[in-house]
């Protein structure tokens, strides 16, 4: 550091490794802006934004796809009713993301990259971000064709793909009364309670406290229930776990 740096840094004594924003940060901003604008301009010269035929309310395209960034939610429609896939799940994503800083009480790993000091929270976030958001979007963009059937990207959409699977409800498949479906769902969420009773004296759960633990457990069990239901559908053609006159799960 030369004298000027040292003197400027001293303008804020609380920041021992500080440098002046001008030019150190401003030049980085200028350069990244230039590079980004060059890339965006080239992209916009080379690739045209799509414009299909005029909107026609009488002709429904097959498949009708939502914008790509919502295709993860549309993909969930295969496995869940619209009120879950389109309303409950997005609401839980937004509220759950907002809650993260208030649920994660681990003081370590603040302001630097570390996997070792917070393996659990990073694993959960990557599972959600990649597994529940990015992968379903890629499936929706590249692997879904007419009838929302699965087509590999290199397969033409005209080959016959009619899969007439008959899905059955879990309780019918097991041959038990349909009210038991509610018991299954409650049992799944009470796993959170059971784990609490088992481990509530552990340092991690003591630090978390009851209310935070309840919210965390609910969110985690909901996150894991999604691939679980997908597996039930794909492996044994289960349509609903719990059927009621008002809603189906």
């Amino acid at each position, binding site marked *: 550091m030369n004298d000027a740096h040292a003197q400027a840094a001293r303008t804020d004594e609380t920041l021992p490794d500080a440098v002046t924003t001008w030019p150190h940060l401003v030049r980085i901003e200028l350069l990244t802006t230039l590079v980004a604008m060059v890339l965006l301009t080239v992209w916009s*010269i080379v690739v045209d934004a799509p414009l299909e035929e005029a909107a026609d309310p009488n002709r429904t395209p097959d498949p009708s796809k939502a914008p790509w960034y919502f295709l993860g939610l549309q993909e969930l429609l295969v496995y869940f009713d619209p009120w879950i896939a389109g309303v409950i799940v997005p609401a839980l994503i937004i509220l759950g993301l907002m809650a993260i*800083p208030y649920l994660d009480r681990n003081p370590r790993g603040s302001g630097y990259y570390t996997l070792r000091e917070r393996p659990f929270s990073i694993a959960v976030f990557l599972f959600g971000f990649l597994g529940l958001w990015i992968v379903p979007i890629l499936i929706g963009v590249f692997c879904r064709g007419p009838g929302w059937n699965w087509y590999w990207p290199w397969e033409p959409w005209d080959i016959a793909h009619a899969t007439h699977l008959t899905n059955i409800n879990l309780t019918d498949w097991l041959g038990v009364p349909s009210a038991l479906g509610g018991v299954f769902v409650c049992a799944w969420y009470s796993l959170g309670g059971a784990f609490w009773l088992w481990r509530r004296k552990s340092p991690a759960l003591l630090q978390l406290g009851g209310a935070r633990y309840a919210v965390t457990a609910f969110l985690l069990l909901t996150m894991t229930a999604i691939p679980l239901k997908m597996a039930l559908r794909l492996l044994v053609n289960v349509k609903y776990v719990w059927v009621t006159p008002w809603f189906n799960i």
Partner: protein
Amino acid sequence: MSPPAERPGFWQQVYRSVFRHRFDDTPRNRVLQITSNVFLHLHPATIRRHGLRLRFTWGMGGLSFLMFLVTVVTGVILMFYYRPTAAAAYIDMKNLQHEIPFGMIQRNMHRWGAHAMVILVWLHMLRVFLSGSYKPPREFNWTVGVLLLTLTMLLSFTGYLLPWDQLARWAITVGTNMAAATPFIGHQGPGAGLTGVTERTDIRALLLGGPQVGDAALLRFYVLHCVFLPIIASVFMIVHFWRVRKDGGISGPPHAEDAASSPGGPRA
């Protein structure tokens, strides 16, 4: 009366009235560059070396903001050539692409800039999570960020309808059909029987101005896309940038000397 030699000339007076300081590279001028410029004053005058590293921030927050600015500028230009009615919208798009000089590239930059913004905001969130930068004292700024994420996607979604082609109309139909499934306030959702909402009175009808995607929906999405959402997003961005500073600047590993007093660094 001061002697004439000290009176600045005309150009000098104009220059000083605009900039207030000189540009020779002195520590004082480096600080003034930032503090006497309303835009650069978003930044503090000094910054921890750590916060400069692209390897740490990935530059994603700043680039998200840049993409927002690109869409604002190109969007205003597109508005000169676009009328939000079912009769005119598609024709205006065709004209824009084929008749208006540089119309196509304006449209492309608007569209690809918006897509880039969605992706960059996701990556920004990923980096903030992986670097643990949402931890105290930055919890609130993370929640502001989640609102910005939601607003970014809503901006993109409302814009998707405006070209009024098949792609647009049906993507918005699929998207807004979800609203019809909202419990109690959507006519296809659980509990619709209890509240008695119909396809003309439910939440989707509020969004679309009617039971399906038509003229009213186009006008609603246009106003949301061009006026309402950009203003709301700008307000939250101002809060977000302000809080980055107030929460102690870009996060970094704690200093040996102040780690004990306040976790996550000093407050600016």
